[in-house]
């Protein structure tokens, strides 16, 4: 696939395709980091793992096609108002499954943030994306909501002697307060603390075209919680890791495995989860950002297998369609993506489906309810707390 031979080369030409000016060295608008945009070689290896490509089999909604669109935007071949650009920037789930298989190391997640930063300015911001950015900004409101619903009690300023500081995700502390309480039950007192006055980490801003604000928020949170931050949500974790550095952030499943293996005495007596007098059958819905952003995939499986029969679902590692605010922005597409997962859960006849991220948790609860499934969604922390016999009755949400 080289091109025409250079002048003086001896190869005879059988046809004479006109070689007009190249656009490989075009003027750039500076929307994207050139090194990131140039990294893709259009091999297409990412197509089969992309949930939106799998739905459509249309290059436009594939990672490679989106990068081609970004390049057209960058070089001015397409302008900002182009409807396909608008549509594809929003149709993408931001799940970064494409990154996990890309041999060329394309950092699609960053490209998507740069794309949305540009694309979703002024009148092009989807109204709900704006709302999502604004909604999580109000720290006191979130704190109050969390307190009403009894999330883990905050313990004042971050303690320097804590092994890690437990982060209370915005949505999680309001919607699923038992998750953070369960975490505290899995570790000896004092190992982790829960610093007060936690703000938002900014992950949702990053997904919704406000990556500068997203960075500031993460940095602020990093200052308020110096040292290791422990998170129960892959989405928050991946964003924090990208701003503060991977070594500052630990996700629950990797943290528990490592901590318990270093301190065997600290591991609670994990019993068996039983349903109808037998060992429970439990599957997993991974978090894309945990898997593709933080590279954590095995620990949750290992932990589940300690307390029940672990059942691997074919799509355990692919996006469930919740994708940050996606299920709110594009409810129909979100449900199309979700359906595959629901079908697999039914086929596997599971007792529980474990989640490791709050938005996936909500997505799966809603989906399973709508499909009248007998399977219950449960966060990993809640499952383990239940196995440790230390759960509170409301874990079976």
């Amino acid at each position, binding site marked *: *696939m*080289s091109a025409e*031979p250079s002048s003086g080369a001896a190869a005879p030409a059988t046809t004479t395709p006109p070689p007009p000016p*190249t656009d490989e060295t075009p003027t750039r608008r500076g929307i994207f980091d050139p090194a990131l945009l140039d990294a893709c*070689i259009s091999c297409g290896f990412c197509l089969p793992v992309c949930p939106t490509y799998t739905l459509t*089999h249309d*290059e436009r909604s594939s990672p490679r096609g989106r990068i081609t669109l970004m390049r057209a935007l960058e070089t001015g071949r*397409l302008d900002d108002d182009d409807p396909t650009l608008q549509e594809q920037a929003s149709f993408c789930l931001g799940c970064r499954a494409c990154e996990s298989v890309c041999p060329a190391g394309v950092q699609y997640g960053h490209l998507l943030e740069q794309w949305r930063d540009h694309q979703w300015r002024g009148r092009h911001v989807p109204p709900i994306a704006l709302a999502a950015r604004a909604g999580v900004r109000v720290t006191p409101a979130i704190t109050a909501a969390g307190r009403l619903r009894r999330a883990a009690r905050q313990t004042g300023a971050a303690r320097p002697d804590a092994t890690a500081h437990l982060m209370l995700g915005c949505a999680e502390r309001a919607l699923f307060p038992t998750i953070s309480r369960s975490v505290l039950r899995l570790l000896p007192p004092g190992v982790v603390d829960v610093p007060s006055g936690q703000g938002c980490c900014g992950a949702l801003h990053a997904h919704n075209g406000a990556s500068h604000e997203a960075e500031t928020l993460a940095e602020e949170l990093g200052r308020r919680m110096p040292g290791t931050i422990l998170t129960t949500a892959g989405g928050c974790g991946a964003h924090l890791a990208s701003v503060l550095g991977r070594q500052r952030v630990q996700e629950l499943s990797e943290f528990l495995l490592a901590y318990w293996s270093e301190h065997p005495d600290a591991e609670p007596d994990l019993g068996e989860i039983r349903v109808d007098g037998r060992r429970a059958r439990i599957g997993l819905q991974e978090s894309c950002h945990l898997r593709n952003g933080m590279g954590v995939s095995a620990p949750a499986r290992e932990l589940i297998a300690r307390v029940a029969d672990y059942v691997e679902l074919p799509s355990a590692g692919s996006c469930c369609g919740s994708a940050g605010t996606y299920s709110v922005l594009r409810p129909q597409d979100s449900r199309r993506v979700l359906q595959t997962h629901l079908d697999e859960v039914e086929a596997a006849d599971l007792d529980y489906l474990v989640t490791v991220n709050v938005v996936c948790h909500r997505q799966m609860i809603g989906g399973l309810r709508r499909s009248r499934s007998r399977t219950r969604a449960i966060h990993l922390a809640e499952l383990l707390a239940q196995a440790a016999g230390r759960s509170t009755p409301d874990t079976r949400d």
Partner: protein
Amino acid sequence: MSTVERTHTLTDAVLAELAGIVGPANLLVSDGDVEPYARDATPLFRARPDAVVLPTDTAQVSAVLALATRAGFPVIPRGGGSNLAAMTVAERGGVVMVLTRMNQIREISSDELLAVVQPGVTTAELADAAAAKGLLYAPDPGSRTVSTVAGNVATCAGGLRGLKYGVTRNYVLGLEAVLPTGEVIRTGSRLWKDVAGYDLTRLLTGSEGTLAVITEVTVALLPMPATVGTGVAYFDSLADAGTAVARIIGLGVLPATLEFLDNRCINAVEDSNHLGLDRTAGALLLFGDDGPDTHVATSLDRMAATCDVVGARAVTRARDVVESDALMAARRCSLPALARLAPITMLEDVTVPRPLLARMVDTIDTIAAQHHVVCATFGHAGDGNLHPTIVFDPHDGDARHRAEAAFDKVFHAAMDLGGTITGEHGIGAAKRPWMAARLGEDQLALLRRVKSAFDPAGILNPGKLGS
């Protein structure tokens, strides 16, 4: 290289007819909608088509082609868009016809050892479905997860098992195909033996979408071998690895896999796959075989011993299937992994008679040095099929010209050794300039007469493969 802006050859009446055939949702016309179809995996070539259609059945394919012949606009079939010769770039405008929505596996028959699939099924989907029934679909191109079966047929794709199992053409039993004039034909059959008529199945295999659009493929399957074993040998130089390959084949061993990577490839692959490869070795030879346990064990022993004799620095064996798969996966992604080195990656596909492999490798190195280009080479050693890959930065002065000049020399060197300009990636638009040198004018003229017998209006992928 070519960049063609849109020709806008389609009239409103034609667009309306197209929408009527495939349905408005399966017809793309706006600049943004067709942009993703302006290129495939080939660097430096792009051209926006005037429209894109995504048909969902054979009748739609037929109606679009009949319309194209009547109205005189080009149609460019497209599968996974993973080819490396600009075969799906709409240089002359027209309609890109995407077959990925025709993606049903119709049948996997254990009794008849065959599968029947629609054109858009990927190679990996077919192989997985066959494996689930204990059967092997042997052709194994590096791009298997993205390439489609019909795309493989249209390019006669090779892969990582070519030495023992051959290439795609050895497995195609029959095709359903639509002629550019709209007629639906069936070539071949479900039979291993069938010599009624010219072998049109083979003629369409490797025809790069210039003769007919393939709408169904019947392929032969094999019983799944009991085990697979893989090993790795490191050498100081590619030439040593080449010598080892010649000795192995000289022994009468016909292994399933003999793949090699040079030092740059080893490092690029290690950067992306983290397998603990020896980054300092001059060359890596991946050898493997499949079959009954005892056969695989003996075969791997003999290959390992031969590598030792030739002076391998180290020889290791994969402990299990997982490790084997990881090694093969690493080899498959050599090309994209090399892309980490520079913005533009140009890959070639010359093939020489097996015994001349080491000599060709030396020649490539010399040419690369003479032209001051960064060249990495990997390939299917067992097939004499080399993929020299030049990486460069387009902003670096005349880097591109140097790359092109170097490849021109490489092609001629391969032909001088009795080899060819492309072993498996095809001619497309990218390799056209060297076709006459490879085939001669008489054969080219015949090729064009064949083309016009299939495609009197010259609408199907015009300009590709010398058409």
